[in-house]
Structures are given as C-alpha cells and as structure tokens.
C-alpha cells in the first residue's frame, strides 16, 4: 500500500462526507434550539437544483452556492411558519417538507436534465492542489474548507458565546428563556433558516461538486443520514465532524472491500453496515441516557407560552 493509494482513498472519504457534514451542522443548530426539522432531504434537493440552475445561467459557481443557501432557507421558512407560528406537529410538517422538496426540485429541474455546469476552481495554487502528497490537504473543492470552517464556527458559537448560550437555553427550557425576555419564536426562526441554508449548500455540493449535473433525487437519501448523524453525535459539534468522516470512511471501505474481492464478507453484509452501525450507536446512546439525556429538553415540543 503506497502513500499515493492512501491519499486517494482519503480524498474519496472527504468528498463523500462533506455534504453530510454540512447538512448535519445545520440540523444541529435547529435541534439545539428545540426544533426537529425532518425535511433535510427536501431542502437539500431544493438547494441542489437552485445551485445548479443559477450556476448554469450565470456561469458562476459562487453565485450558485449563495442562491442554494437562500433557497434552502426560504423553503425552510414554510416549515417555520407552520410549526412556530401555527403550532403544527413538527414531525409531520418536517416529513411534508421533505416530500415537498423532492417534488418541487423535480418540477424546477425538468428543464435542466442533461446539462452540465462549470466547476469551482481550486483556491490554492496548482503546485499545492495537484501535488501528489499535498493534495491530501489542498486538493479539494473550496466547499470542503467552507464546510469545515462553518462547523468549527458553529461549535465555537454554541459552546463559548452568549448567542450560543441563548440558543441552547431556548432549546433546553423555552419557558425560562421566554420569561427572562428572549424571543423563543424569533430565535427558532433564525435557527431554522440557518438549517435550511446549510441543507441548501449541502445539496448544491451534489449538483455542483461531486457530479456537475442535475438529476432527480440525486442526493439519494443523504438528508436522512445527516439527521441520524446529529443523534449519533449526541448533539455535539466535535463528534459531528468525526461521525461524518467515519460514515464516509465506512462507505469507502465497503467499496474497496468489494473491488478487491474480499469474499470473507458477503455484499449484503456491507450493504447492511450503516444500519448495524445505527443500532450499535443507538444502543450506546440509550445506555448513556440512563444517566441523563444529551438531547435538548424541548426538542420537538411546540412553544405555547399562553396555553
């Protein structure tokens, strides 16, 4: 096993993990504020088609990403109005948002099938980004670095700033936060919009970075994995990074094992690996739950101060 081989494998892992990390980071903030938005998959697809369409028309991938974030945030506001202002059930509304996003992206994308868009150029000089060794650090799409920067910023804000403390307070005890004068609804709106924007960017990673094209349902269920990842990570930003890369590493390992013809484990075992992992992690979390849950206390509960 040469160095080049290992580096190529790492590049694959990072590539496949990044969109999940982006979407999960957004959902982490949403859930920290006490709201469960299950519509990540739908918002990602809206971001994917918007990013693609804008890049296709403007030839500028940066504009595409910004538009994807805006579209994701906009569609998340539909969810926001329903669950925050109208007090509808968060689980049902989130699922509806997922379905809406799938349908809407298909509708918008009908005219964009079979087209391709220009890709991001590297932000580092070619000497570094194409160097056989240094590409392991400098050889990625700019979106990879942006994703990492965002997750570190989110982790820092949540744990070390006043804004993060307020957000957590709203998620842990909405009535107390309300009684000392914080706008629970307003803060939750902002959190949902941030989650939507992150999901939108994550979606655009599929249509602009991994494969620069649009195809219906091209995120192929990654939004659901991002949701699960937030739970696995125990609502902690640091563990989210590890979890996302671990997921990418497992999937890449599966592909290498299959291509190398390792017959000691049947293909069905590898295919069921994510689910086995899910059960193991959930078991660990449930065990820890006995000593106190890590989930935000108000997660999924509507805020109705006057009822």
């Amino acid at each position: 096993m040469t160095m080049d081989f290992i580096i190529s494998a790492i590049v694959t892992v990072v590539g496949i993990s990044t969109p999940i990390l982006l979407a999960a980071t957004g959902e982490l903030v949403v859930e920290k504020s006490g709201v469960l938005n299950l519509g990540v998959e739908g918002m990602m697809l809206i971001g994917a088609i918007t990013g693609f369409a804008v890049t296709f028309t403007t030839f500028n991938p940066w504009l595409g990403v910004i538009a994807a974030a805006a579209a994701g945030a906009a569609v998340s506001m539909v969810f926001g109005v329903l669950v925050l202002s109208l007090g509808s059930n968060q689980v049902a509304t989130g699922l509806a948002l997922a379905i809406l996003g799938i349908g809407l992206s298909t509708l918008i994308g009908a005219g964009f099938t079979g087209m391709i868009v220009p890709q991001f150029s590297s932000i580092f000089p070619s000497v570094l980004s194409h160097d056989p060794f240094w590409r392991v650090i400098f050889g990625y799409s700019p979106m990879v670095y942006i994703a990492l920067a965002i997750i570190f910023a989110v982790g820092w804000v949540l744990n070390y700033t006043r804004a993060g403390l307020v957000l957590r307070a709203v998620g842990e005890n909405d009535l107390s936060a309300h009684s000392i004068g914080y706008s629970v609804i307003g803060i939750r709106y902002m959190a949902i919009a941030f989650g939507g924007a992150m999901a939108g960017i994550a979606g655009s990673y599929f249509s602009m970075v991994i494969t620069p094209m649009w195809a219906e349902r091209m995120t192929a269920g990654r939004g659901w994995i991002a949701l699960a990842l937030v739970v696995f990570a125990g609502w902690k930003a640091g563990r989210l990074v590890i979890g996302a890369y671990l997921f990418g590493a497992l999937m890449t390992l599966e592909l290498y094992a299959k291509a190398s013809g390792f017959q000691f484990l049947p293909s069905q075992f590898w295919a069921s690996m994510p689910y086995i992992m899910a059960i193991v992690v959930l078991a660990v979390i449930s065990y820890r739950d006995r000593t106190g849950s890590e989930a935000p206390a108000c997660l999924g509960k509507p805020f109705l101060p006057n009822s």
Partner: protein
Amino acid sequence: MTLMNRRNFIKTVSATIALPAMAAKSFGADTLKVGFAYLGPVGDFGWTWAHDKGRKFMVDQLGGKVVGDYVENVAEDASAVPVIRDLAQSGHNLIFTTSFGYMDQTIQVAKDFPKVMFEHCTGFKRADNVSTYNSRFHEGRAVLGTIAGMMTKTGTIGYLGSFKVPEVVMGVNAFTLSAQAVNPNVKVKLVMIDSWFDPAKEAAATETLANLGCDIITSHTDSPATLQVCEQKKLYGFGQGADMSKFAPNAHLTAIEDIWGPYYLSRANAMLDGSWKSTDTWWGFKEGSVVISPYNAAMPKEVAAAADKIQAGWKDGSYNVFTGPIADQSGAEKVAKGVVMADGDLAGIDWFVKGVEGA
C-alpha cells in the same frame, strides 16, 4: 329513477368530464391509441427517456394513424394498477408497461381487458393479450469490452454495477469475455453499489476503482457520474443507455443506446393490420434495438475497426460472445467448447466468468 348515491355521482361526473375529452380525441375509426406507463420522468436522460424516444418514433412513422399517450413516474407497486387500468379504460388498445416492476400489475389488469393488448418490458409473465419484450444489451457490452481490452494500459478495467441481477451479470460477463478475447491477461474489477441511482456513491466507487489501478471504467447504473469522474481523472469510460458525450467529451469513448422505436412501430403496425399475437421478443443489434454511439476521436483506428467487426458479427450472426469454453470465477467449466449459451440460460444467469474480481 336512479338513486344518486356517492358511487353513481362519481360515475356521472367522470362521464361528463370524459365525454368532451373523448369526443376531441375521436379520430377516424381506425386510429390506434397506444398508451405507455413510464418508470421515471421523460427527462431522466436514461431508461424512460429512451422509451419516450421510441414512442415519438412510432407516432412520427405512422402519421395520423396512431396516438401515443404516456404516464410518467409510475411507481413499481400496487399504485401502478390504477394507472394501467386508466390507460385501458380511456380507449388505449395497445399498452406498453416499461419496467420490470409492473409485471404482476400488467397481468392483473390484462385479465379484465381481454380486448386490449399489453406489452411488458423485461418481464417473463405472458398471457393471450400480454407480450414481453427486452433488448440484448449484452451485445453492446461485448463491443465496449473489445474497445476496453484493446485500450487499457494497466490491464485492469473497472466495472460499476448496480445489483446482482441477470441483466447486470450478463453485461459483466459479455464485457469481460470480449475484453479477454483481445487481451488475455485483462482483469475486470467489479463493484456493486446496491443502487440503480446514487450519483455520490457512483462517483466514490469510480474513484475507488481508479485508485485500484483501473484506467477504463464502465458502469451499469443510471447516472453519468462515472463518466464525469473519469473526465476529471483523465480516464476513459462509456455512456449507458444514451450518448453521454456531452457530460464527458474526452472520457466518453462510446455508449450503448437503447432504441425501442422500431419495436414499438412493428407492434403498432401489427395492431393496425390485425396480426398482433402474444410473443416474447428479445432484439439486439440485428433488429436495431441496440446501437453503438459514434466513437470518440481519440480511439485508434484499429480499435474502431475491431469494434465495428463485433457489431457486424452480431448483425450477421457470425459472432456470439457467449460461445464456450466459458469458466466461472472458480475456474469450473460452465459452457463447453463450441457450445453457445441458450437464451433461457442467459436470462437466469447468476455466476461471473473467470477474470472478474470482486462483487
């Protein structure tokens, strides 16, 4: 005096709605209405797109004698039944259901409409008014295998599959056998991604195969992801189902195109002249169901000549990639020397030939 209960009300209302629509569509008495149930959207640039191209071809060729309607995004579950039933009820005399997952639903609806003729794509259940049809895509795979076997420099070719189903296994085997015929030491590394459509996983699998030394990577999944990764990595690949050179102008060597038009035309003609019978059709190069896209200019002349020769061989019947001796992965002989595998054996094939690694 009829009671206006809910059921009657619905009947009356739908009849009122349907009447003008039917009047508008009443062409001559000999106008044939053909209906299609599609798996995906017509713009999927793959499976459904190819079927719709076939439908348009049929309509164009027959001028005013035929009307072709379709329903897209039909799920492969019980919800396909009302869709097919609606097509039959709204006066379509010939109905094509274009995915494997509509098999039982087609048979079920066909029982209630003995005067409507049905055609199910890729299935194996037939009835007096239900035919089946498919294409010999593996014939095209033999052309790709020949090209890949001649052009690979590393001697290792990547193959991205979806599931271990006969259609995919057939393709892998045809590809490998034809590549070995021109390059005896060639190895084919196979990865099944357990999905027909997952661009991110297809891309990751392509990167994996490239890292394992494959310099040509072909795929049997529905997106152009493999080609796009090949383009970025300056490797070669092939289009699947349609000419995908637009997605990867340099990497795209050629593609297998699914051409359904001639079949749809022949079946519509059979309806018009009253000769329609329940059959099982499996067309290939000879009948024009499988077509190879224009070659990439980067392909050397002798490779193009060899590829042309395989195509010509399929057409005149002088070539069949599944001619023995053929051994499976363990080396055991599956087909004896000089014997050609029967269609029935091919249709249920579940073993890979020697030289296929992985899966």
